[in-house]
C-alpha cells in the first residue's frame, strides 16, 4: 500500500459505505475486533489451547491425542464439543497430505478472502475447506487443526504437508519471495530442500538464493590442505587462492612500476634506490583482507539462514550424504536436491619431487617468505599472471612452456602478452618439460634443481628457489561417491550435464568449475548458481547464457576479451566471412614514462555477412578488466562495427581507440596508430 489507509478498509465492507464516522484508528480497532471474533469463534478455547501444552506439542498428531481430547471434553463451553475419536483428525491429516496447498478457511473471514485473492493472483492452486459451511464438523475440524498445528484461527495454511501459518505468514512470505519456493519445494521428508556442496562463489550464491526463495538449505565446505599444508577459509578458490589475492599481487607489481614511472613525471624518490617489495608484509595485508571476506561470507550465510557445515561430504545415495568434520566425526544429512559446486584444484606433474618440492597457486598467495628465484611451469593464464607479478615484485622469474601460450585464447594476443613479458625481463624456456626435481638446499626459500628436456631432446637444468606448477586444474569430483550414485563424469573428471546444469541424476545439479566444457570463471559460476537456484526453487526457465562471456588475463600488460578468438571465428564462419579491424596504440600515461610504443593493441573480429557484427573483442593494454567489462554490454547486445563507430569517445582514454578503428588486417596496412 502506498497510501495511508485504514488498516482493514479493503476488508471491511460496511465501513466502506461511509456510515462509520469514527477516526480511522478506532475504526481499524473495531474492525479488527470483529474480524478476530469471526475467526476465533471461542476465545476461552484459545486460552485453553495456550495453556494446554499437550495440544501444542502434538504437532505430529501422535498417540497423545487421546489425552488432549480428554482435556477438551472437560472444557466449559458448548462450542467445544469433543472431537469424535480420531476420525476427524485423520480426515484433516488426509486433506493436508493430499494437497500441495491446503487452506482451512471460512466464508465469513476477511483474512481468508485476502489469502484467496493472493493465491488467485499468484496462480497458486490451493484446496479450500470452508469450515463454517460444515456445521458441527467444521467446529470439530478446527479443534483437530489446533491439535495438529497449534493454530486455531483461520485461514490455516498447510504447504507440502507441513503447517505454514495464517494470512500474515502467507503475505510476508509472498513479499519476501519465499512463498512460491516453499510451494515448489514439494512433499518430502528430507532434512533439507537443497544441499550445496562447495562454498565457493557459485555454491554460496546458489545456497543463499535458494534460501531467500523459501528453501531450507545447507552448504558444505571443506578445504583439503595442500601437500605443503596451506589451507583457507570459506569462499572457495577465487577469494582465497585465486582472483582476489592474484589481483592484489598484480596491483602490488603495477605499483612498483608506477613508482618508477613517477620519476619521469617529476617525482623524486628519497635516496636513489629502486623500490623494493616486502613480501611478508604484502602477504600479511592480503591475507588479512581475505580473512575479513571469509568472515563476511559466514555472517551472510547465517543472515540468510543457510546452514554452513565445515565438513567433507560424500554421497551415500542420491538423497543422502555423509559429512565428516575436522575431528573425523561423521553425520548423515538428507536433501531433496543437491548442487555440486566443489570447484577444482591445481594439478601436479607426475615427476619425482613435484609434490614434495613444488608449490602451486594454492600456496603462493599465503607463502610467508619471499619465493626468490622462481620457475613457473606451464603457460596457462595462472602461470603467466603469477610470473608477471613475481617479476613485478623484483624476482628473477622464468616460465617453462611445453608448447603454446594461453591455450584456448586468441593466439596473436597470447604471443603479444608473451613478448611484452619477455621485454619486461621474464625468461621463457620453450618448448620444454620438467622431468625431475631435487632439493639442493633446505630453507625458506630453499634451493631446488630442476631437470627438464626441450622438445628436441636437449637437456635443461637450473637451480631455483621456488618452483610453481600451473599446468592446469583438476575438478574436485573424486572421492565423493558421485559415480556410485549415478552422476556421470567425463574422462577428465568433469561433470556431464544438460543445458540446465542438471547431472545424469535428476535431483543433482552442478555449477562452476566442475562442469564439463564450460569456462572456469567466478562470475560465470555466480550466474549459473543464481539462475539454477531460481530454476530449482521457482521453476524458472531462464538458462545460463554462454556466449559473449568477458574475461581478463591480469598479466603485466592486461588482456581483456569478449566473444570469439580470431582462430575460433575463422573455424566457425570461414576466413571469407571474417574481417579483422586492428590498431596499435600508445597510452598517454606511457608517453612520459617512455614505455613501449608498440605493445598495446586492439582487435575487433567482425562478420561481413552479418553487417559487420562484432563477434570478437580483444584489448591488450592498461586497465583491460575495466574496459572489457564495459564493452561486454555492447557485445551482449549484438553490436556491429557501425555501433562502435557511432560512439563518441572520452578523451584522453585507451578505451576510445575502439571508436576509430578503420584499418583491416586484410588491407595489409600497418596498424600502428597515427597521433591524436
Amino acid at each position, binding site marked *: 500500500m502506498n497510501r495511508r489507509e485504514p488498516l482493514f478498509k479493503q476488508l471491511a465492507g460496511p465501513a466502506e459505505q461511509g456510515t462509520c464516522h469514527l477516526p480511522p484508528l478506532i475504526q481499524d480497532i473495531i474492525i479488527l475486533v470483529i474480524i478476530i471474533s469471526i475467526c476465533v469463534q471461542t476465545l476461552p478455547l484459545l486460552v485453553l489451547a495456550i495453556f494446554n501444552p499437550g495440544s501444542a506439542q502434538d504437532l505430529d498428531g501422535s498417540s497423545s491425542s487421546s489425552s488432549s481430547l480428554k482435556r477438551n471434553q472437560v472444557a466449559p463451553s458448548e462450542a467445544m464439543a469433543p472431537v469424535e475419536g480420531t476420525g476427524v483428525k485423520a480426515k484433516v491429516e488426509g486433506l493436508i497430505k493430499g494437497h500441495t496447498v491446503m487452506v482451512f478457511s471460512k466464508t465469513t473471514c476477511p483474512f481468508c478472502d485476502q489469502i484467496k485473492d493472493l493465491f488467485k493472483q499468484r496462480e497458486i492452486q490451493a484446496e479450500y475447506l470452508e469450515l463454517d459451511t460444515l456445521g458441527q464438523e467444521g467446529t470439530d475440524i478446527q479443534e483437530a487443526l489446533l491439535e495438529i498445528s497449534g493454530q486455531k484461527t483461520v485461514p490455516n495454511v498447510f504447504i507440502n504437508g507441513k503447517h505454514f501459518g495464517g494470512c500474515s505468514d502467507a503475505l510476508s512470505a509472498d513479499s519476501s519471495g519465499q512463498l512460491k519456493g516453499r510451494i515448489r519445494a514439494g512433499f518430502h521428508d528430507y532434512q533439507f530442500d537443497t544441499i550445496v556442496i562447495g562454498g565457493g562463489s557459485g555454491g554460496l550464491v546458489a545456497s543463499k538464493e535458494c534460501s531467500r526463495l523459501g528453501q531450507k538449505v545447507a552448504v558444505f565446505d571443506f578445504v583439503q590442505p595442500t601437500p605443503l599444508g596451506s589451507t583457507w577459509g570459506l569462499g572457495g578458490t577465487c577469494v582465497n587462492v585465486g582472483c582476489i589475492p592474484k589481483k592484489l599481487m598484480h596491483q602490488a607489481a603495477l605499483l612498483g612500476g608506477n613508482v618508477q614511472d613517477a620519476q619521469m613525471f617529476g617525482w623524486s624518490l628519497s635516496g636513489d634506490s629502486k623500490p623494493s617489495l616486502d613480501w611478508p608484509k604484502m602477504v600479511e595485508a592480503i591475507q*588479512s583482507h581475505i*580473512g*575479513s571476506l*571469509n*568472515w563476511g561470507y*559466514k*555472517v551472510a550465510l*547465517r*543472515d540468510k539462514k543457510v546452514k554452513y557445515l565445515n565438513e567433507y561430504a560424500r554421497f551415500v545415495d542420491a538423497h543422502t550424504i555423509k559429512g565428516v568434520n575436522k575431528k573425523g566425526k561423521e553425520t548423515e544429512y538428507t536433501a531433496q536436491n543437491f548442487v555440486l559446486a566443489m570447484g577444482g584444484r591445481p594439478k601436479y606433474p607426475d615427476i619425482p619431487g613435484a609434490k614434495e618440492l613444488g608449490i602451486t597457486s594454492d600456496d603462493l598467495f599465503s607463502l610467508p617468505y619471499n619465493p626468490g628465484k622462481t620457475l613457473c611451469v606451464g603457460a596457462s593464464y595462472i602461470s603467466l599472471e603469477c610470473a608477471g607479478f613475481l617479476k613485478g615484485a623484483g624476482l628473477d622469474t622464468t616460465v617453462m612452456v611445453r608448447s603454446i601460450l594461453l591455450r584456448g585464447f586468441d593466439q596473436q594476443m597470447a604471443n603479444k602478452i608473451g613478448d611484452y613479458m619477455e621485454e619486461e625481463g621474464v625468461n621463457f624456456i620453450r618448448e620444454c618439460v620438467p622431468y625431475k626435481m631435487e632439493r639442493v638446499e633446505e630453507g625458506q626459500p630453499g634451493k631446488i634443481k630442476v631437470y627438464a628436456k626441450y622438445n628436441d631432446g636437449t637437456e635443461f637444468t637450473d637451480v631455483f628457489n621456488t618452483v610453481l606448477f600451473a599446468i592446469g586444474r583438476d575438478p574436485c569430483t573424486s572421492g565423493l561417491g558421485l559415480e556410485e550414485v549415478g552422476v556421470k563424469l567425463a574422462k577428465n573428471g568433469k561433470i556431464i550435464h544438460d543445458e540446465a546444469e542438471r547431472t545424469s541424476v535428476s535431483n543433482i545439479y552442478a555449477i562452476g568449475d566442475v562442469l564439463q566444457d564450460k569456462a572456469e570463471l567466478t562470475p560465470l559460476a555466480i550466474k549459473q548458481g543464481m539462475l539454477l537456484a531460481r530454476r530449482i526453487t521457482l521453476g524458472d526457465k531462464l538458462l545460463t547464457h554462454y556466449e559473449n562471456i568477458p574475461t581478463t588475463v591480469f598479466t603485466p600488460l592486461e588482456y581483456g576479451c569478449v566473444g570469439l578468438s580470431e582462430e575460433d571465428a575463422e573455424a566457425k564462419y570461414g576466413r571469407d566471412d571474417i574481417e579483422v579491424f586492428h590498431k596499435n596504440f600508445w597510452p598517454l600515461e606511457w608517453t612520459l614514462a617512455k614505455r613501449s610504443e608498440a605493445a598495446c593493441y586492439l582487435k575487433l573480429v567482425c562478420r561481413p555477412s552479418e553487417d559487420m557484427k562484432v563477434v570478437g573483442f580483444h584489448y591488450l593494454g592498461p586497465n583491460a578488466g575495466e574496459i572489457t567489462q564495459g564493452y561486454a554490454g555492447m557485445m551482449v547486445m549484438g553490436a556491429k562495427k557501425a555501433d562502435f563507430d557511432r560512439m563518441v569517445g572520452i578523451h584522453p582514454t585507451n578505451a576510445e581507440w575502439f571508436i576509430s578503428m578503420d584499418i583491416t588486417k586484410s588491407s595489409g596496412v600497418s596498424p600502428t596508430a597515427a597521433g591524436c
Partner: protein
Amino acid sequence: MVQKYKVEGFEAFEAKLADIQREFAGKTVLVLFSGSKDPKTHQSWCPDCVTAEPVVQACLDKAPEPEQVVFLYVGVGSREFWKDPQCIFRTHQSTQLKAVPTLIKWGSPQRLEESQCNRPDMVEMLFDD
C-alpha cells in the same frame, strides 16, 4: 567463567587491552564497543547497544570454553563524542569503528556491527575457531 572487564574511553581501553593481552596471552579476547551509559539511568544512549548487551552477556555465559574467553566492555563516550567523525574510536588504526555496538574478536577480522550483535546465532560464531 568468562573473565569480564569494563572500561570507559579510549585511553582506558588501550591500557586495559594491553593488560589483558599480557595476562591472558593466547586466550580469545572479545571487545564490545558500546555507547556509554547514562550514570543515572544506567542505559546507553544507543538503542542497539541496549539490546545487544544482554544478548552478548547471555552468549558469554554459554561460551563453550569460558575459561578461554576474556571479555572487555568499552564505553565509547557520549552520543556527541561518538558522532564526531574524528572520534578516536573511528579513526584509530586499531579500532576503526564504523558503528556502535561493535563486537570484535580481537586480533581477527571477525566483527559484528549494530543489529548483528543482537543475534545470539551471530555472536556464537565468534566462539568458533
